């Protein structure tokens, strides 16, 4: 682990200087490093301790670290490969590359450390490295960076406070050590510590009430980096939540509240519920495709949190499975968007249309990505949603179910918007000469597509990683046998479902082929209610796709606005202080008056 971190550190430097020579070399360094790291991590046995730069036993490779590292490295490897071509659009390629490698270093460090302070340092490395990449994006991205740093530091400072509270009690920073003692503390202390530690994870994974940064940051960051932000950095938050919830004996620390769910889990589940609702409803409204998927990240963060917080044999496994599904899906979606922006230069849904006729591979990547994101079989996205549903039903949590179902059906709505607006419909006149993304970009997209379907049909490998995590933390592990997934509420077989899907498709195809062939006509040749159309750019229905639904929640309260109001109030106070400290006649007059009033009051 130590050597891996060292290699990445050196790699960041090497990548920087190589990029100065030729900017396409940097991403190659990142790609090679992530593939090497993937190989090392895949082979490394779990449960090993290691020293870092002479500090004994601060690194520990758990099954949870292994799982999260593999996810991160898959995301980074595809990101690196994709960048080999995309990097020509980057504003500062050398810095972009070096900082990307540093982000990888930071996150891997977080996954490896068993020492709270080391974890905090790596966490800040990841945040700072990504912080400098974000402003290389769109014009508004500088403002977005402020959102990012503020929300992120709220989380990390609360986290740091929690660590010090623990240290003052036990004089150790070792997570697993603390986990053994914490059970016997007072109720107030337990609540304070656990919530403070979770705050960093909540801020990072975009859970309500700290979800506001995602829209700005994911929407405005450099196009490919959004894939890392949503597919990987957000998962760092989920990792911390999973770690705290499983290392600390949460079920024994807090009282039971409802059907075997403890009160802390219940609070977390409610945060997840609200995140799902906000993420879904706001995603439906967005016209910017990257912001739309950013809000969907909020909703999916909610799913992961709900799954993990149930601490249930099936639900916890579902939450962990959802991490890998959302990582892959978000990466696929953001990479396909990056390809679209690479060719067309816009992220606005209503400025695009009909790209399927020019970019079919990008379209297929997006399609499989959204099928997985919306949780439709036979992709892997369905498996985790199914697991979460099963555990909620078995516990009879009907109100949570409502939010989860809204999020699930709402996701059909919002993922369909870019599908219809960007890829289907009439091609815009300005895009008539657009070509498919370069081959280098297509390769990672195709591999991710294949992985999503593969793990949807044969989920054993992922389930082995997940059950290893559950065994490690002494939970009952999820049961499966080959492709048959079992719960107390019944089972299903991914392979049979896939076969039946193939059979259904074949039956449809046979009827289709046997019957007379259709004549191909252009998209302009269609039923127009008798109108004669001149401009087919205006004919494509993409603006305000769900206006009738949006109208139902128009005047909703906005947390972003409330936070901005706080910012304005702070600015007002700052202006006032500024005013008092300025060397103007009115300030002198004010201070003279104050001093005189003081003298009068004291009666010197």
């Amino acid at each position, binding site marked *: 682990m130590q050597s891996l971190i060292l290699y990445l550190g050196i790699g960041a430097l090497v990548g920087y200087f190589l990029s100065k020579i030729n900017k396409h070399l940097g991403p190659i360094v990142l790609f090679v490093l992530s593939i090497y790291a993937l190989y090392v991590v895949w082979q490394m046995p779990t449960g090993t301790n290691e020293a870092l730069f002479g500090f004994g036993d601060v690194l520990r490779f758990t099954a949870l670290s292994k799982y999260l590292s593999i996810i991160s490295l898959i995301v980074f490897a595809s990101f690196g490969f994709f960048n080999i071509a995309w990097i020509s659009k980057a504003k500062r390629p050398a810095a972009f590359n070096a900082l990307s490698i540093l982000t990888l270093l930071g996150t891997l460090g977080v996954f490896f450390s068993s020492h709270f302070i080391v974890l905090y340092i790596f966490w800040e490395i990841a945040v700072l490295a990504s912080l400098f990449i974000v402003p290389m994006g769109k014009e508004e991205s500088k403002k977005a960076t402020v959102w990012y740093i503020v929300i992120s530091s709220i989380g990390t400072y609360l986290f740091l406070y929690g660590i010090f509270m623990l240290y003052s009690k036990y004089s150790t920073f070792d997570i697993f050590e603390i986990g053994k003692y914490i059970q016997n503390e007072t109720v107030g202390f337990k609540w304070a510590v656990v919530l403070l530690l979770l705050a960093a994870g909540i801020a990072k994974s975009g859970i309500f009430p700290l979800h506001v940064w995602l829209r700005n940051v994911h929407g405005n960051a450099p196009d490919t980096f959004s894939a890392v932000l949503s597919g990987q950095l957000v998962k760092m938050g989920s990792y911390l939540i999973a770690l705290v919830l499983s290392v600390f004996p949460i079920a024994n620390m807090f009282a039971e509240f409802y059907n075997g769910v403890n009160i802390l889990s219940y609070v977390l589940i409610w945060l997840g519920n609200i995140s799902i609702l906000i993420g879904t409803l706001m995603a439906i409204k967005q016209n910017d495709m990257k912001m739309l998927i950013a809000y969907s990240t909020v909703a999916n963060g909610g799913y992961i949190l709900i799954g993990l917080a149930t601490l249930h044999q099936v639900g916890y496994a579902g939450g962990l499975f959802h991490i890998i599904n959302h990582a892959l899906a978000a990466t696929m979606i953001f990479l396909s968007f990056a390809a679209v922006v690479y060719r067309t230069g816009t992220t606005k849904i209503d400025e695009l249309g*009909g790209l*399927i*006729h020019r970019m079919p591979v990008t379209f297929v990547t997006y399609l499989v990505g959204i*099928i997985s994101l*919306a*949780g*439709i*079989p036979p992709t892997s996205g369905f498996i985790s*949603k199914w697991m979460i*549903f*099963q555990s909620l*039903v078995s516990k*009879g949590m*009907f*109100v949570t*179910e*409502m939010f989860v*179902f809204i999020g699930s*059906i709402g996701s*059909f*709505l919002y993922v*369909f918007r870019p*599908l*219809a607006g960007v890829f*289907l*419909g*009439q091609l815009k006149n300005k895009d008539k000469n657009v070509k498919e993304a370069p081959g280098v970009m297509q390769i990672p997209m195709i591999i991710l597509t294949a992985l999503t379907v593969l793990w949807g049909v044969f989920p054993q490998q992922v389930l082995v990683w997940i059950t290893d995590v559950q065994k490690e933390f002494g939970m009952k592990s999820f049961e499966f046998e080959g492709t048959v997934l079992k719960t*107390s*509420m*019944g*089972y*299903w077989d991914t392979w*049979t*479902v896939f076969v*039946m*899907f193939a*059979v*259904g*498709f074949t*039956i*449809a*195809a046979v*009827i*289709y082929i046997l*019957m*007379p062939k*259709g*004549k*191909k*006509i252009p998209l302009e040749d*269609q*039923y127009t209610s008798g109108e004669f159309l001149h401009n087919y750019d205006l*004919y494509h*229905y993409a603006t305000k*796709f*769900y206006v*009738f*639904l949006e*109208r*139902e929640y128009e005047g909703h309260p906005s947390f972003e606005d409330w936070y901005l109001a706080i910012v304005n109030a702070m600015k007002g106070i700052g202006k006032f202080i500024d005013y008092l400290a300025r060397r103007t006649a009115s300030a002198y007059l004010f201070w003279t008056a104050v001093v005189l009033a003081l003298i009068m009051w004291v009666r010197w």
Partner: protein
Amino acid sequence: MAGIAGTVTRVAGVLLTAFFFGLTFEGFGRKIAARIQKRYGPPWYQNFIDVFKTLTKHGWTHGWIFDFGVLMALGGVIATLSFVPLGNLVAFPGLDNFFVIAYLFTVGALGMAMGMVGTGNPWASIGVARALTLMLGYEVPYLIVITALMFYYKTGNISDIIVAQAQSGGWNIVKFPIGALVALISLQGMLGKEPFEAPIAPAEIASGPMVELSAKYMGLLMLMNTFMEFVEISLFVDFFLGGGTYFVFLLKYFIVWTFAVMVSTVLPRFRIEQAVSFYWTVPILLAFLQAFFVVNGWVF
């Protein structure tokens, strides 16, 4: 091999049942609707004529995504249908988990939506946007009621719930009357019949998603529609009317179908936002009431 042969026979049985009885009952439905409106109506086998006629005509296509969408729609629905228990005819015993069926169902819906929006006709896009919005309305109360049932019987398998009804001697429509009412209201939305007909709305948006369909594409989607109806009504019969043997099941199916048709002929159309806000007030509250009863063990 005997196992595989048995499975293939059962799947074929389910699909052929859906094909013959689905189209026949649709024909009866048209006849009933006509009589309510004091018309004579087409013969009961009119839908067979329609499907075969459209399949054999020469039509138009709008590119590969249109063709692919149609195939995905029919293929997805066939896959879904093969997992649905028709009373005691279960193609894959033990594999009829409700969530699998509910989500497999959306493959077909997504295929249809994608293919139809792929035609580039705005009427189709509007229809699909409305269909998805309506889905957000009816699915949530429906899923809450069904999960309440699943919580009560401690199983997610549909045939287990059928067996439990047979053993206790009471249908779920008696045990869970509020839930059955909610499911019936949701069923009307799923079937896309009045008053929840806004996604199709022939006089308003030119049949919405179907606007650009011709010849075999129309025929394939008519088949898909029949199969979808079959899945939806079968689920209701299985969950609330106790399934039953093959012919008893079909009789129950026919009664539910006739009821839905009769409701649709006498009601006007909700606007889409009215439909959604309706689903989000009355049925969802009733669904929670039912769930509350189940959690407290107040079941007849």
